């Protein structure tokens, strides 16, 4: 998955586990950028009586670097508070929740937002309500109204939303982690010599994140509030047009679990336990022994991990798993060449001169942040392969909710993007075709019906209702929110 269970420690702490990060110029409000950070992976919608919620004991953050040093120039910090109306009932809701202030909403969360800019904190929102989880037609009728009522404008001008959403990320996780068996190409897999007749012919992918929910923290921020000089980014070639974004979650240094109290106590400074910028990095590129450490440090120190970006293990595996498919990649690997294309995409941003009319280079500091050139206008006909599909508004120029990041990164690692930095290199034909098979075409922005993305903030779809799933795992019906 993008980052759902990417490291041993954080996979045991889902409340603090970041799953996906998105950053894009808002298609319906192009003077703004939307940043979405998702947490709490793989939520079964039917999770009563204790439906999923943010951690009161977790410090969530969205960070923006606008000068290329890999250090946050702007951070938004989120702290949640849970209030229980009636502790003498086991019910999350004691009747239909008709409004976000409905007294039947028994276990509710609110949150505060503190904006740090150049190190100076300012509380820009407090007591902001979260909507309930989507339970079903009796408990949360007209869910769209509940979610819509939770969209708030901060005192500093940004839109904010925090609450449950339908998972928008899609991946054939079962196949990928069955030793790289990509179903559309499984007939080419070496199968380690095993006789597996069902792998003898291509098959469509299976989405492992179908019909689950996540918890979303979303911001819509004026572009002028993101640039280092307050200017409106209109020139694609200008360094100041690009930003780097990442999200973090932290816990306090000490947790005590006292006997006979049923609750723990935390104390001490906040310690980062989760980090996410570019999808799949810690999942696939960072080796097992470094995953938890990677989560604990900031992007300004990513030089120490650069070898794992420049010589990804998966790049070496592809020619082994698919012996006939990647001869050119195999030869490239054999030379021990550092993959400057991957370093640019994932660490520094893509310099000018690589892709005509485009750059999102933030500087030489190797920092895994999601780079977004804000001067690139939203695409009127988006391609889910982003830059690889000729759509400059998609990943790895930021990331939209529907971008097929698994296919994009598979193809990049398979060598497609290496040709951008070495004109003498010819990518293997398979490198341009490899996919986990979850989109019908490059213009499929529905992820084969995985979720109904919204056309406006917060863009991720209405969460799946517990009443419906799993018997009906079709996408949640389109709603205003």
């Amino acid at each position, binding site marked *: 998955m993008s980052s759902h269970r990417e490291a041993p420690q954080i996979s045991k702490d889902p409340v603090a586990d970041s799953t996906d990060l998105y950053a894009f110029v808002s298609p319906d409000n192009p003077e703004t950028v939307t940043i979405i950070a998702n947490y709490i992976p793989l939520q079964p919608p039917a999770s009563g009586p204790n439906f999923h919620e943010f951690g009161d004991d977790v410090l969530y953050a969205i960070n923006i670097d606008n000068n290329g040093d890999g250090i946050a120039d702007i951070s938004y910090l989120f702290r949640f508070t849970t209030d229980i109306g009636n502790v003498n009932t086991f019910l999350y809701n004691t009747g239909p929740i008709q409004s976000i202030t409905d007294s039947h909403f028994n276990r509710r969360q609110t949150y505060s937002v503190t904006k740090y800019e150049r190190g100076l904190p300012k509380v820009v929102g407090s007591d902001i309500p979260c909507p309930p989880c989507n339970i079903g037609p009796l408990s949360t009728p007209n869910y769209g109204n509940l979610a819509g009522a939770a969209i708030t404008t901060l005192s500093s001008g940004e839109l904010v939303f925090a609450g449950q959403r339908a998972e928008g990320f899609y991946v054939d996780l079962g196949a990928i982690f069955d030793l790289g068996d990509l179903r559309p190409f499984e007939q080419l897999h070496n199968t380690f010599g095993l006789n597996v007749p069902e792998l003898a012919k291509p098959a469509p992918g299976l989405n492992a994140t179908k019909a689950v929910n996540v918890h979303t923290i979303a911001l819509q921020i004026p572009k002028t509030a993101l640039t280092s000089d307050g200017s409106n980014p209109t020139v694609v070639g200008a360094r100041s047009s690009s930003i780097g974004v990442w999200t973090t979650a932290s816990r*306090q*240094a*000490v947790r*005590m679990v006292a006997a006979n109290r049923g609750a723990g*106590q935390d*104390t*001490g*400074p*906040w310690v980062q336990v989760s980090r996410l910028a570019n999808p799949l990095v810690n999942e696939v590129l960072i080796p097992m022994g470094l995953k938890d450490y990677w989560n604990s440090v900031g992007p300004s120190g990513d030089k120490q991990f650069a070898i794992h970006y420049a010589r990804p293990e998966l790049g070496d595996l592809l020619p082994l798993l698919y012996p006939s498919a990647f001869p050119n990649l195999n030869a490239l690997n054999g030379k021990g060449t550092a993959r400057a294309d991957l370093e640019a995409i994932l660490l520094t941003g893509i310099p000018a001169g690589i892709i005509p009319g485009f750059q999102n280079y933030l500087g030489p500091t190797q920092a895994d942040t999601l780079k977004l050139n804000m001067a690139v206008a939203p695409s009127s006909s988006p391609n889910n392969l982003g830059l690889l599909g000729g759509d400059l508004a998609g990943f790895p120029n930021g990331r939209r909710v529907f971008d097929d990041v698994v296919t994009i990164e598979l193809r990049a690692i398979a060598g497609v993007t290496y040709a951008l930095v070495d004109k003498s290199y010819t990518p293997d034909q398979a490198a341009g075709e490899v996919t986990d098979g979850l989109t019908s075409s490059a213009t499929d922005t529905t992820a084969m019906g995985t979720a109904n993305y919204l056309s406006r903030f917060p863009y991720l779809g209405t969460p799946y209702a517990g009443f419906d799933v799993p018997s009906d795992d079709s996408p949640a019906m389109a709603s205003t929110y």
Partner: protein
Amino acid sequence: MAAAGLLASAPAGAMSMLMGSASEAPAIEEETTNLADLGSGVDGPVVAHIRDIGSGEISVFTGEREVVIRDPAVAARLLRAVK
């Protein structure tokens, strides 16, 4: 750094708990400081962690802060408390 891994915790306003209970610890020097005054304004638990037995380096956690002190005598008293 020696990994002592020793945690001592105390609720706010009860700093004396840092030293463990009298029944568990060997003789403890008489504390002359007014602990109640010291504890006022401390919100939540106070936790001490001996980071390095050799140097007596102790992390003291409270609220959202960590204060590092180097006090071999305090470290020794804490260690005696758990002997």
